[in-house]
């Protein structure tokens, strides 16, 4: 059914608009302002044009190298966690019972990690991964592995991946489970009549039906991993060296640690632009799927 055109609907959107303008656009303009100015201290600013942006996007400068390193590090982190979380999440969702008394408690248990404040997650894993008092660290050391989060770059990186998988696979599970529940039984009955194998049922019935929730899941997870800050900040502080200095951590280091407002602002804008572009691609895919469904 076609929606009626009604521009008075703007009135209903107005409160949201005002609130988001206040909390998004206003601060964003400060960032834009900083990004084209340089400061000599004492709150004296002068026009600096696009110099910060040129530095940032040129990998041969110090800040440029730092930015591109952090970007690559963050992208590889996002891709690795997605590659682990999506299959694991789908597999676990398929194992969940479709009904019964156990479903409610199971969903609550599975969702629990997502309700813990992020720095508590960090603290929890900081303790858990220590070789002296944490089970995870002690177990890995006991297996003879050279595991040390604060000194070994590979350990630190893998630990952040494990934390993220632990923390956010539940999101994929819940989304997939919701998608699975929405598949009518008739589809499964048809599959049984055709004597389809479990695998064929999954590929031909479940996976296509899950397309939409999976796009949402991948979008949310990609964005969250791309913005990850608190967990690595608490667990590794971005180190050792810069092994786990992801984009947000680097940005906060420059902005609040070194108070280099200009470069930090330029970096904020480029960073934001990248997330926006990716978000827009996913959004387009989503609306396309919507249209196909209602067509």
């Amino acid at each position, binding site marked *: 059914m076609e929606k009626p055109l009604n521009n008075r609907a703007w009135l209903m959107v107005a409160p949201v608009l005002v609130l988001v303008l206040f909390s998004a656009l206003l601060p964003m303009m400060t960032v834009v302002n900083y990004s084209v100015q340089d400061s000599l201290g004492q709150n004296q600013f002068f026009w600096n044009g696009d110099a910060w942006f040129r530095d940032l996007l040129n990998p041969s400068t110090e800040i440029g190298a730092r930015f591109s390193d952090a970007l690559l590090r963050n992208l590889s982190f996002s891709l690795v966690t997605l590659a682990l979380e999506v299959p694991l999440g789908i597999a676990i969702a398929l194992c969940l019972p479709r009904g019964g008394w156990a479903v409610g408690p199971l969903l609550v248990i599975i969702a629990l990690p997502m309700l813990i404040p992020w720095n508590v997650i960090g603290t929890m894993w900081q303790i858990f991964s220590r070789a002296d008092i944490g089970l995870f660290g002690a177990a890995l050391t006991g297996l003879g592995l050279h595991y040390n989060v604060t000194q070994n770059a590979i350990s630190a990186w893998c630990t952040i991946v494990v934390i993220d998988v*632990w923390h956010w696979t539940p999101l994929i599970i819940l989304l997939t489970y*919701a998608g699975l529940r929405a598949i009518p039984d008739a589809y499964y009955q048809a599959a049984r009549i055709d004597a389809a194998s479990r695998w064929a049922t999954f590929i031909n019935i479940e996976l296509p039906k899950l397309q939409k929730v999976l796009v949402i899941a991948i979008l949310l997870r990609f964005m969250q991993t791309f913005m990850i800050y608190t967990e690595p900040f608490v667990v590794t502080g971005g180190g050792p060296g810069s092994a786990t200095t992801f984009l947000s951590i680097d940005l906060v280091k420059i902005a609040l640690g070194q108070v280099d407002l200009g470069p930090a602002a330029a970096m904020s804008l480029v960073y934001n632009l990248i997330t926006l572009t990716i978000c827009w691609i996913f959004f387009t895919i989503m609306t396309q799927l919507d249209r196909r469904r209602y067509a």
Partner: protein
Amino acid sequence: MAAEVLSTSSLVAVENPARPRRAFRLTNLLPRIGFAIYLLALMLPIYWLINMSLRSNEEITSSLAFWPHHPSLQKYFFIFNDPTWVHAFMVSLTYVAINTVISVTVALPAAYAFNRYHFIGDKYLFFWLLSNLMAPAAVYAMPFFNLYYAIGLFDTIWAVALAHCLFNVPVAVWILEGFVAGVPREIDEMAAIDGYSFPRFFIRIFIPLIANGVGVTAFFCFMFSWVEQLLATTLTATDALPFAAVMTRSYSVAGMDWSLLAAAGVLTMIPGALVIWFVRNHIAKGFALGRV
């Protein structure tokens, strides 16, 4: 149609008569074992934290043990009796509650408008809203500090409550829009024919129809505001410091009081575990943003 939508969302047991019990086979057992291992891995870090919170620091540092040998709630009593911790806990709950109320209230009419009407720029506006959900909090930390400092809200619960609207208002609009879509348009038309004015229809008829959706949305706002810490700590100093920030701060000052840290960590899980119980039957649909 509304009933149909509701029934698919509820997780009430529906026995599938067409699916006979399969014979016991190893291939049926494997998924169960895998699932059990996953649950175990999920629970272990949480269990470890609870375990540590019940042990004394000497016991923690001297040996690795799977369960506390002399369990004591001493650290919990310490937190309950310390005004700083109690105050911080109330602060966290208050700004989360204010934020949830604001977000859901403004998002309700907007979600209705986005779903029911075409208006100039609607698609761009919707995308722009969503894009705020994807904006890194780190980008906003510094400008928010300047902004709230300038308007005199720095270090108040209002600063955090408003700052969290940045992502919670778009989340609320997005989830609610999915639920609004589940209510057939005929109901709007019937109410208009019956002589309901729009505000009356909206409050008396429409909101009760999507009550589940409102509950789920409130849960999500609660959750995102409760777990977010970067903005919450940037915008506060002493008076409105959130609980989890007091926790991080306390261990840098007092050395490593592992057991106190663990006890505080366990306490931060309780509000989440309580609210999730109320929406457990709808949470899966909510995570799919009402779009299943």
